[in-house]
């Protein structure tokens, strides 16, 4: 690793959500959270979002000095003045439980927490060292006495602790360093000569078992001697020479490259590097050599408080002014400070000797020497311009440099050093005089045969054969389209496996040159539309085409007669369809530089990785891409140059594990439901009362992979069948949900498409509103049933009451009035008889005789009518059979005596039909009227009566062969009017078919009611 270039650094401050910029310590917990102890509370970071804890959550002090997660997962917070706190992620409103350490303020200013191999918690305070003891469900702290270097007040503060593999506890403070042996004895290390600046700020063991001790006066490397080397003396003292180490021990100071002598933080990186934080910046020790990292590389030279690594291997540097993340294997960038003439990169090139060059600004050519660039301007006239997107300079295999300008094409022979460009004039200038179609040359390419292809600004294509002097201009005759201008300028060139050159034009158009002719591919053949920027043949012989409008196209076999084009665009995950350049690495992966960073495509796995500013890319607008001989990829941008070192076959370690996902907040109508602060995979099921909402669910996964933020998909089982489209959104709100049982599932999707192995699940049940619940429905059904029953009972009672009344009336009529009328008739007759009997034999009829006879007759008529009325209202005869019976009897009584042939047909019903009193009476009266008419007026010899019951209808036909009458002229003597009235009241139809001398047919058609 070289440390001259700009590192891929990103700074985080309160603007990003950190609780305070004054960070004192940082810690990575077992889940992957980064915790930041600040002077303004505690912050937790999941790679994207900070969560802040303060007094409102129960923290007893603003200044947090340290955070510790024990091996059993308990979180301890060290405060400055209020002892320690236990963090209870399920505590709801009370997340922190305060545990005092000592009795006074100094002993409750806890600088450092440490858990040793036995699980004992050690608290380093401003009043010495305390050890925690578990007492059932709580912990209490006891002071541990140690021989201190100074007994002076204020000189017993503990600031650093660590443990070695032999069980020695190393304690550092503002008085020096103490090694606490496993047998309880202590070894005191004293700096000689002693000073007031002997305080220890950091302790770190390296892979070799050596202890790095950060003093305020420098960094000391100690090789701890074995315990056996110490005499059996209770008090042991060892001196440390301030200038040189004892034995193999060594001192490092600014003289050795340390950025500052006051060492404040130490960190052992995977791979063995020891990072050193000081009062003024950071240094790195590799094989015992220190290099300082300069502010220009991305780390400011301010007070460093802590160093740690996140799950993706990025190094975090915390300071008094925010945190800095250095991305592991990120892109490192170069600009004017590294020797470039300009940060606007036109093109880059690797010559036959493997040297790397970039071309910037106006013909400034820079050569990379391993750490910096050396730059010289090619000697072209000042008025020569280097147009946007043109290849301002390119180096041929022969070592020749071709420099196209608006004044012609310049050639330099192979140069020794880049500085030669400033001294050596061009060997040639080619222009219209040499056969070029115009002076303005846009691009130059050399093919494998050594031929030089030139694209001019007007769109011409020219070739000079190797060793030849003639420039051959291609025209329509060679297969180029007539209007070359529509194809634009020759932007890129590539040769396929068979040696056939391919040409891409910058305003559209793709062609190959085969058998002496150009073959242009049309859109119909699948060729890309829009401007083309780059062509690349990869190591498998595939042709890749970069378009500024339609992303990438791939041709697996460019030698085929009819090549097949395959598109790869933003819909496949590309960051932008504006592709500016293409390159591939030694692992066969393709890099597309776009207007929105770089996309790396692995053609084998189909996975995609995006690089952007966050990964250290100099700018998101990438203009050129080149692979150097070492395999590193160089990306030129409009604001600097970036290099990506490809580690062979080792993708970043964490990317092999699928992302985990947690639900960390569930809010119903704005109220938090009990969910662990640190998130849960399956929070407790929830019951949502009807109409209560909205339901908000928040979730997250650890997303420390730079430039590839996790995306999330969710699905609501019970309402949605498909996973939602992946989104970086970390929450979802359901405004209202129909009642039912639901399961909310959410999973994380990494940029390479790997999804969480298991989704996080929240089950919840939305209760139906009260009117849709089972008990309410049952209740309503019961109430309706009850009402129907009551109504039915009332109706039955009513009918029974009516029947009783009808029965009583009919009995009364029959028994009382009927009997009395009979008596009147009898008595009137008796009176008449007596009168007749008593009168003389030839005396005239007495005057009273006639009225008496009228009385008797009327009484008999009334008895008759009464009989009909009694029958009509008697509920016991409410049936069709009773009606038929009475009709038959009446017809026989009335017509049976004469010489009339009577036929009476009536329904023979198996089931007696109930018939209402009204209908029964009216039908009988119509029959009676008609039959009486026949008896009185018709003089018929044949009468046919048909009575039918068909479905819901009753049908009565009375026909005779008598003399008939004209219904229109019928007097009421025939009772026709009353018959019609009766039928109308029944809602039926009466037809009278009669004429003088043709008999009479009366038809009644009426609906039968069941009641």
């Amino acid at each position: 690793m070289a440390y001259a270039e700009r590192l891929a650094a990103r700074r985080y401050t309160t603007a990003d959500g950190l609780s305070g910029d004054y960070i004192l310590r940082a810690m990575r917990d077992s889940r992957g959270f980064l915790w930041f102890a600040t002077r303004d509370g505690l912050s937790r970071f999941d790679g994207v979002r900070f969560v802040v804890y303060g007094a409102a959550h129960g923290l007893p002090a603003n200044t947090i000095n340290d955070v510790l997660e024990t091996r059993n997962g308990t979180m301890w917070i060290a405060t400055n003045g209020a002892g320690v706190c236990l963090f209870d992620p399920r505590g709801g409103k009370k997340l922190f439980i305060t545990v005092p350490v000592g009795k006074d303020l100094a002993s409750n200013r806890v600088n450092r927490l440490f858990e040793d191999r036995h699980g004992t918690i050690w608290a380093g305070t401003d009043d010495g060292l305390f050890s925690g003891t578990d007492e059932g469900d709580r912990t209490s702290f006891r002071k541990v006495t140690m021989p201190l270097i100074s007994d002076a007040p204020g000189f017993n503060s503990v600031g650093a602790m660590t443990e070695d593999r032999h069980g020695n506890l190393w304690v550092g403070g503002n008085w020096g360093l103490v090694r606490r042996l496993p047998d309880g004895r202590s070894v005191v290390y004293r700096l000689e000569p002693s000073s007031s600046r002997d305080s220890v700020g950091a302790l770190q063991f390296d892979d070799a078992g050596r202890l790095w001790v950060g003093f305020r006066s420098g960094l000391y490397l100690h090789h701890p001697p074995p315990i056996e080397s110490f005499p059996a003396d209770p008090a042991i003292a060892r001196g440390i020479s301030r200038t040189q180490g004892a034995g193999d021990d060594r001192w490092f100071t600014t003289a050795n490259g340390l950025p500052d002598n006051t060492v404040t933080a130490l960190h052992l990186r995977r791979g063995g590097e020891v990072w050193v934080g000081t009062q003024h910046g950071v240094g790195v020790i590799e094989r015992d050599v220190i290099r300082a990292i300069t502010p220009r590389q991305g780390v400011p030279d301010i007070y460093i408080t802590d160093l740690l690594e996140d799950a993706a291997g990025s190094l975090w540097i915390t300071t008094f002014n925010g945190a800095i993340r250095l991305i592991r294997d990120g892109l490192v960038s170069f600009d004017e400070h590294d020797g470039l003439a300009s940060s606007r990169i036109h093109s880059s090139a690797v010559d036959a000797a493997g040297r790397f060059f970039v071309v910037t600004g106006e013909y400034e050519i820079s050569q990379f020497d391993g750490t910096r660039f050396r730059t010289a301007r090619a000697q072209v006239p000042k008025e020569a311009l280097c147009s946007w997107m043109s290849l301002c300079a390119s180096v041929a295999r022969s070592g020749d440099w071709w420099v196209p300008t608006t004044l012609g094409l310049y050639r330099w022979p192979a140069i020794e050093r880049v500085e030669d460009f400033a001294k050596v004039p061009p060997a040639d200038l080619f222009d219209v005089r040499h056969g070029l179609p115009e002076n303005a040359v846009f691009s130059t390419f050399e093919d494998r045969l050594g031929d030089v292809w030139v694209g001019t600004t007007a769109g011409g294509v020219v070739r000079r054969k190797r060793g030849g002097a003639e420039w051959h201009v291609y025209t329509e005759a060679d297969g180029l389209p007539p209007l070359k201008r529509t194809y634009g300028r020759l932007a890129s060139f590539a040769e396929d496996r068979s040696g056939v050159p391919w040409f891409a034009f910058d305003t559209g158009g793709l062609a190959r040159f085969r058998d002496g002719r150009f073959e242009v591919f049309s859109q119909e053949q699948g060729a890309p539309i829009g401007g083309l920027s780059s062509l690349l043949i990869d190591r498998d012989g595939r042709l890749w085409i970069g378009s500024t409008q339609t992303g990438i196209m791939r041709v697996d076999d460019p030698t085929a007669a009819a090549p097949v084009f395959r598109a790869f665009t933003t819909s496949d995950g590309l960051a932008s369809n504006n592709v500016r350049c293409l390159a591939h690495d030694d692992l066969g992966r393709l890099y597309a530089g776009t207007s929105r960073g770089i996309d790396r495509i692995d053609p084998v796995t189909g996975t995609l990785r995006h690089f952007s500013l966050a990964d250290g890319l100099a700018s998101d607008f990438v203009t050129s891409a080149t692979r150097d001989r070492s395999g590193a990829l160089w990306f030129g941008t409009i604001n600097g140059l970036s290099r990506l070192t490809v580690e062979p076959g080792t993708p970043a370690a964490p990317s092999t594990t699928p992302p985990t996902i947690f639900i960390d907040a569930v809010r119903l109508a704005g109220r938090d439901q009990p969910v662990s602060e640190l998130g849960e995979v399956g929070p407790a099921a929830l019951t949502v009362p009807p109409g209560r909402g909205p339901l908000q669910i928040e979730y997250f996964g650890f997303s420390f992979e730079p430039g590839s933020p996790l995306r999330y998909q969710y699905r609501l089982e019970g309402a949605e069948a498909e996973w939602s489209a992946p989104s970086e959104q970390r929450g979802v709100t359901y405004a209202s949900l129909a009642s039912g049982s639901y399961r909310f599932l959410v999973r994380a999707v990494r940029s390479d498409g790997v999804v969480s192995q298991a989704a996080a699940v929240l089950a919840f049940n939305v209760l139906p509103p009260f009117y849709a619940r089972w008990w309410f429905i049952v209740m309503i059904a019961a109430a309706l049933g009850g009402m129907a029953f009551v109504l039915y009972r009332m109706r039955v009672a009513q009918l029974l009451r009516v029947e009783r009344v009808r029965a009583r009336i009919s009995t009364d009529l029959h028994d009382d009035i009927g009997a009395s009328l009979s008596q009147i008739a009898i008595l009137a007759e008796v009176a008449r008889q007596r009168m007749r009997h008593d009168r003389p034999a030839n005396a005239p009829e007495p005057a009273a005789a006639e009225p008496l006879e009228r009385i008797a007759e009327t009484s008999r008529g009334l008895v008759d009518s009464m009989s009909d009325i009694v029958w009509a209202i008697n509920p016991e005869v409410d049936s069709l059979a009773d009606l038929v019976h009475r009709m038959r009897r009446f017809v026989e009584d009335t017509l049976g005596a004469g010489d009339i042939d009577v036929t009476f047909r009536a329904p023979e019903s198996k089931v007696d039909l109930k018939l209402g009193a009204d209908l029964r009476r009216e039908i009988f009266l119509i029959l009676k009227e008609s039959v009486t008419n026949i008896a009185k007026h018709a003089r018929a010899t044949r009468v046919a009566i048909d009575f039918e019951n068909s479905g819901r209808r009753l049908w009565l036909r009375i026909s005779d062969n008598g003399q008939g009458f004209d219904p229109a002229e019928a007097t009421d003597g025939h009772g026709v009017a009353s018959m019609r009235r009766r039928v109308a009241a029944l809602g039926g139809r009466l037809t009278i078919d009669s004429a003088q001398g043709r008999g009479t047919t009366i038809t009644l058609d009426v609906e039968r009611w069941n009641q």
Partner: protein
Amino acid sequence: MTGTERDITVINIEDQREIREGLAVLIEATPGYKCVGRYRSMEEALAGIGPTSPDVALVDLGLPGMSGIDGI
């Protein structure tokens, strides 16, 4: 009215006096019929009919004591 044919004998059981007497008058007034007994109740009729053995009995069904139907 000829003496060769015996009149049809009728008894009349009726609790209302006017009707009982009236019916008797009407029966007597009808040629060929002769009212041979008038009773106020069924019990009285059963006790009094004895040897007379009438051809026809006009019985009011609704009588005090034994009903007409029971008597028949």
